[in-house]
């Protein structure tokens, strides 16, 4: 077997060195009656050329945005990743390394994390960022736990307009910790209902989570939201960013009064990948630094006073603090973080803004094209690259597919009150033509 270097001769010699007769002697500590009698119920080994063909076959039994322009967003946005990213990720020095526990032989990874932290803090308008979390959804849950540690309150307000999966993960995470999760409704503009918000704030509320943009693609007036959070024990404001690209064009949460920003940065150079691996993150103010979950890298010097980087503030972490840790996370999304770092360096401040502007323009164009067919936005609030309309949602996806398009997302699945609501996303990868085709298809539905 090509991954197993030991030849029969090696085995003989190694057994000799160990001082046993056979390999099975090495397993003597496993009680006989627990040993598996037969072979595993698995097929035989498959040779690489055959297996490769099998995976090709599996891969083509899916139809992806490669063949069909994709109007599906809802937390996963179809962006182009420049070619250098993947080729750099393929450097064995990066992808076959472990978490940088020995900094003297992991400065490559550590410096990249430091760069990622800096850029995420800059993009979100915060002071510090961690080195990644599993994904956007779990970052929301971690944010809630973090806010509780800071504020002590046990009620979390979450906008109903936050991504449904994120809200569900938040509930899963907090279920047994005595939290109260309360949803705050949205208004006719799709934005947070500020009156309802004000009414919901109590001294026990440690955090308000608002999508930016929210699940409907609507850009919240985050400054107004921040203004609505008043009082002595006022809760932290957390912005949930599911489409990180929007940060290039929308006022950063940090500038609007947010205390922390969590979300999903997969848009930065990572493939859609049927949902994973993605790239969660949290950034926050300096004061909250020690309550962050996950890995953090800090700058230091070596014995010759040269700059270097290390994992730091590790006393927050489970391998030191065990159950008192800020999170249980250990392996995080290192290589995804690296992809995002390369992506951001590649795009630069201007490129990222140009791209964001193009997303905005495509979505605005699609909106107008749909309006021309009599299809109106569901909400009046401003949007970035995604917006909701009212169409016969059940039929829409099928009709789009028949026209070689991947249609949008049926809001009725998660919001009974929005039955017939249909979420459409337009990134830089859909052409004007595709927008026109979609408008024609949806306009043709009764």
């Amino acid at each position: 077997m090509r991954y197993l270097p030991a030849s029969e001769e090696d085995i003989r010699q190694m057994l000799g060195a160990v001082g046993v007769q056979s390999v099975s002697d090495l397993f003597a500590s496993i009680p006989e009656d627990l040993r598996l009698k037969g072979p595993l119920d698995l097929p035989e080994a498959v040779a690489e050329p055959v297996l490769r063909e099998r995976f090709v076959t599996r891969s083509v039994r899916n139809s992806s945005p490669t063949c069909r322009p994709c109007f599906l967003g809802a937390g996963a946005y179809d962006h182009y990743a420049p070619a250098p990213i993947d080729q750099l990720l393929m450097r064995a020095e990066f992808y076959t390394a472990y978490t940088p526990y020995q900094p003297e032989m992991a400065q490559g990874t550590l410096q990249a994390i430091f760069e990622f932290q800096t850029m995420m803090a800059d993009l979100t308008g915060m002071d510090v960022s961690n080195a990644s979390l599993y994904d956007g959804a779990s970052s929301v849950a971690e944010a809630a736990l973090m806010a509780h540690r800071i504020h002590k309150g046990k009620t979390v307000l979450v906008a109903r307009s936050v991504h449904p999966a994120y809200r569900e993960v938040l509930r899963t995470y907090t279920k047994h910790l005595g939290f109260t999760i309360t949803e705050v409704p949205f208004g006719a503009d799709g934005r947070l209902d500020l009156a309802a918000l004000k009414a919901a704030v109590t001294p026990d509320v440690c955090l308000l989570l608002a999508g930016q943009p929210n699940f409907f693609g609507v850009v919240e007036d985050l400054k107004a939201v921040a203004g609505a959070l008043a009082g002595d024990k006022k809760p932290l404001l957390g912005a949930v960013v599911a489409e990180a690209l929007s940060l290039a064009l929308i006022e950063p949460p940090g500038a609007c009064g947010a205390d922390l920003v969590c979300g999903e940065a997969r848009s930065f150079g990572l493939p859609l990948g049927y949902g994973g691996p993605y790239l969660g993150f949290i950034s926050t103010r300096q004061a909250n630094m020690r309550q962050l979950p996950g890995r953090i890298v800090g700058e230091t010097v070596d014995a010759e006073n040269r700059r270097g980087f290390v994992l730091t503030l590790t006393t927050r972490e489970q391998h030191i603090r065990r159950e008192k840790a800020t999170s249980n996370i250990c392996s995080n999304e290192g290589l995804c973080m690296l992809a995002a770092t390369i992506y951001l360096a590649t795009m630069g401040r201007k490129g990222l803004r140009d791209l964001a502007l193009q997303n905005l323009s495509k979505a605005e164009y699609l909106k107008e094209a749909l309006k021309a067919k009599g299809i109106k936005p569901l909400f009046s609030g401003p949007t970035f690259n995604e917006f909701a309309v009212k169409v016969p949602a059940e039929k829409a996806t099928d009709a789009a597919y028949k026209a070689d398009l991947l249609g949008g997302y049926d809001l009725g699945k998660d919001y009974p009150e929005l039955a017939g609501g249909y979420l459409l996303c337009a990134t830089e990868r859909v052409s004007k033509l595709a927008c026109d085709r979609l408008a024609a298809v949806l306009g043709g539905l009764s």
Partner: protein
Amino acid sequence: MSRPIEEKLLFEKDHPGRVGASVPPCDVPEADPRKVLGDMVRASAPALLPEMSEVDVVRHFTRLSTYNYAVDFGLYPLGSCTMKYNPKINEEVARLEGFARLHPLQPESTTQGALELMGTLQHALCAITGMDACTLQPAAGAHGEFTGVQLIRAYLEDQGDARKVMLIPDSAHGTNPASAHFAGYAIEQIQSGPDGCVDLEALKARMRPDVAAIMLTVPNTLGIFEKNIAQICRILHANGSQVYVDGANLNALMGITRPGDWGADVMHINLHKTFSTPHGGGGPGAGPVACKSHLEPYLPRPVLAKKEGRYLWDLERPKSIGKVLGFHGNFLVLVRALCYIETMGAEGLKRASELAVLNANYMRAKLKPLLELGFDGPTLHEVVFCDKGLPGGVTTLDLAKRLIDYGFHPPTVYFPLIVHGALMIEPTETEPREEMDRFVDAVAAIVKEAEETPAFVKAAPHNAYRRRLDEVAAARNPRLTFKP
């Protein structure tokens, strides 16, 4: 190449006017952001994002990469991390566009290939672990622990018998208590016996109705198989409690013995350990959870189902603990893991475990004359030494840093906590014998250096890209971002 090239930070390479990517011209009228977004338009550009050419970017990260050590260079014996070789065909198939560019919310009718792949992987993981059901949603080992413990909790509550306490041995990885804590449990640490295993009598004595479950790593972090595991399961079950197995060390057991057959109720599996998917410098991993049928109703939504030959996502799971991740798990990691399993086949996986254990015992035998064992009993896929007897006042950390000079990644150090100055060594089955011999020679040389020139060893590393880094200063005065 000569010595690595000193590369500045991205922000020090910012060069206004340079362009690193080409954005296609916009084929629709350009929107006016201020008109669309009003005063929610970003007032100032993210100042620190650098402007660089593609050349600059490629060189920056290529240079950074040369500061790293990696499995593709040699032995990476981090204990309990299973740093095995990452097969190249895995990387190739995970990049097929039909996988890499699938949207997670596409209709199931358009993703049957991906779903079949996931179904096949679930089946394989059940077969390997002896479990009945499986979720692929968790993104890493700790995430799997959290999910698994939640299953236990949901099950017990459903039985009307919420319990408070999670028993965890002192040899456990820190994620175990942390995960149980976030599932709302009080953690009670149980002391290992002199043989490194659970003290059965103490355990029996602790069996009261408040015990929800025990979390056991098998083999444990000392590399020792929990010989009474079946009895432990019976004891816990008799108490109405559940048994959670941390499968981080499954690489010792494939095809040899199965947690499901011991009586364990639920476990997680680290695909980025046992199933060869790359560690990526700290993830992404995948931590599927496999369980017995009584826990199945509680698995995270949605659950993969098959109806009339077609796969679909079943959302109607009233007892589900709910989602633990936004979508369906780290799919592209799952692709790699299945590619590995199908490459190895039933026999190959068993052989991998056998050779992993042989390699670890070979290392143990060769290192025993040089270092002192943490525990004396038989070990499987890894072995733990302690710092007792290291000459010249040299510590575990010094030895580790000096190994860097010899071109090796050091073992896991100072874990498990119950061994003083622990050095935890797991070579994995993909290590050739000569490479292990090279490592043993390096340790022998360092021990000799420790006798003769301890100060030199204590000042290691000498040949790395950086000398020893000051971690204390970093924590005392945290500088977590670049300040211009």
